[in-house]
């Protein structure tokens, strides 16, 4: 049964007509950015995941690996960015095994855009694809409907406006790797502080030509939680228990097989 199933679609539609609204999926409110520099490219993301106005995950990973040297930052519906990225990542590896060549960033971008276009925007993945390959460093952005953009710097997600404000004012043509990393983390921080959908930490990934990509998980942690000054531990026995049962999780099965009889058993036709 490969692919997506639509079994529940009619039932859910019926529930909708009966006045039951549809539940919200986790969305990565998100600020994501990417920026090229002399000899490579860097992408960055915040780490907040929201469902409605609840922060579902305070330290989620929005930087996904498509190939060892091609990474991708995702905004939009969290499950979609994760799944589309895993699917294309797999296909990209099969593709590069088939050709016996390192995968190219344009290939990843084309596979993603054609997949997303096929679903006409129903797969809500907004991606910044970046990486290095034998043709150099590349940076693209992809929208859920399947359109792509090329550029020296990109930003996407609900915090993209705050991030773009930083990129537009600070970006210049001859950035060094360190300057690009600073620029990207500054842009994400602008999202963290000024966009309600973004928050927590900064993740960052640097891809240099001819080198393995380096992931800086929690590159910046400007929102560390204050340590509790007092323990809220309850005394043992506070909670009233009606019944208690204990099960063992370990089942020991022992079977002794001598080498001699095992060797004889293997011989099928003498």
């Amino acid at each position: 049964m490969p692919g997506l199933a639509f079994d529940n679609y009619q039932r859910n539609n019926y529930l909708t007509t009966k006045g039951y609204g549809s539940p919200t999926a986790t969305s990565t409110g998100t600020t994501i950015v990417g920026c090229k520099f002399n000899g490579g490219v860097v992408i960055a993301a915040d780490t907040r995941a929201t469902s409605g106005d609840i922060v579902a995950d305070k330290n989620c990973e929005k930087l996904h690996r498509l190939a060892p040297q091609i990474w991708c930052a995702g905004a939009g519906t969290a499950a979609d960015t994760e799944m589309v990225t895993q699917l294309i990542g797999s296909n990209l590896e099969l593709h590069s095994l088939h050709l016996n060549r390192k995968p190219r960033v344009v290939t990843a971008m084309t596979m993603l855009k054609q997949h997303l276009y096929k679903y006409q925007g129903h797969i809500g993945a907004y991606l910044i694809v970046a990486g290095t390959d034998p043709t150099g460093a590349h940076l693209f952005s992809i929208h859920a409907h399947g359109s792509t953009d090329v550029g020296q710097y990109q930003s996407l997600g609900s915090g993209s406006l705050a991030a773009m404000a930083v990129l537009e004012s600070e970006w210049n043509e001859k950035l060094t790797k360190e300057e690009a990393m600073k620029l990207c983390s500054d842009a994400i921080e602008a999202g963290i502080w000024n966009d309600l959908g973004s928050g927590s930490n900064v993740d960052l990934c640097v891809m240099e030509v001819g080198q393995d990509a380096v992931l800086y998980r929690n590159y910046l942690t400007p929102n560390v939680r204050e340590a509790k000054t007092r323990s809220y531990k309850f005394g043992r026995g506070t909670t009233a228990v009606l019944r208690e049962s204990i099960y063992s999780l370990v089942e020991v099965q022992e079977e002794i097989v001598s080498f001699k009889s095992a060797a004889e058993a293997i011989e099928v036709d003498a």
Partner: protein
Amino acid sequence: MNNISVDINHLKKGEVNLGTSIMAVTFKDGVILGADSRTTTGSYIANRVTDKLTQIHDTIWCCRSGSAADTQAVADMVKHYLELYEAQHQQPPSTHTAASVFQEICYTNKDNLTAGIIVAGYDKKTGKGEVISVPLGGSMHKQEYAIAGSGSTFIYGYCDENYKKDMTQEETIQFMRYSLGQAIKWDGSSGGVIRMAVLTARGVERLIFYPEDYQKQ
């Protein structure tokens, strides 16, 4: 097939739009394509340096307007078909052939597409440029010059009055630069830089004009 009153002007929710001012003009030595560089999602400028001029074959290019996703997908398909065409026929496709492929796709999928395209190419045999527009419904119109996109409405009069047959390259560039400059000026969905592609016997030449270049005059 009776109820074909479909609103094909609507965009899917949250779709990236090429608000756009685009044109292609034939002249003495070939043809020139021109476009602004703005793409929008709602009122936000998603890209201010977009390249809406896309190469379809060696000497055939197109200007894209409408949905960014749709026009990119269609252009990629046509590019693919023309590659097959050349391999099968052992000769490059004509501009007319390219436009026909665009038309075929845009017409058969008209209910699902928001794509207005101008195809322009230079024919080595005749030494002439050719412009064919394929607007929203999927019809096909051969023209001496074509304008399209939301910004084009502001320059119909100017272009009609000032276009001349067999202009020089410099005259044509001046004409297009001023036309697109006016379209950008009056249309909120168009803006950024003006990009051009000059298709002649010498091959292709890309030009870019920044606001300070096209705003004066």
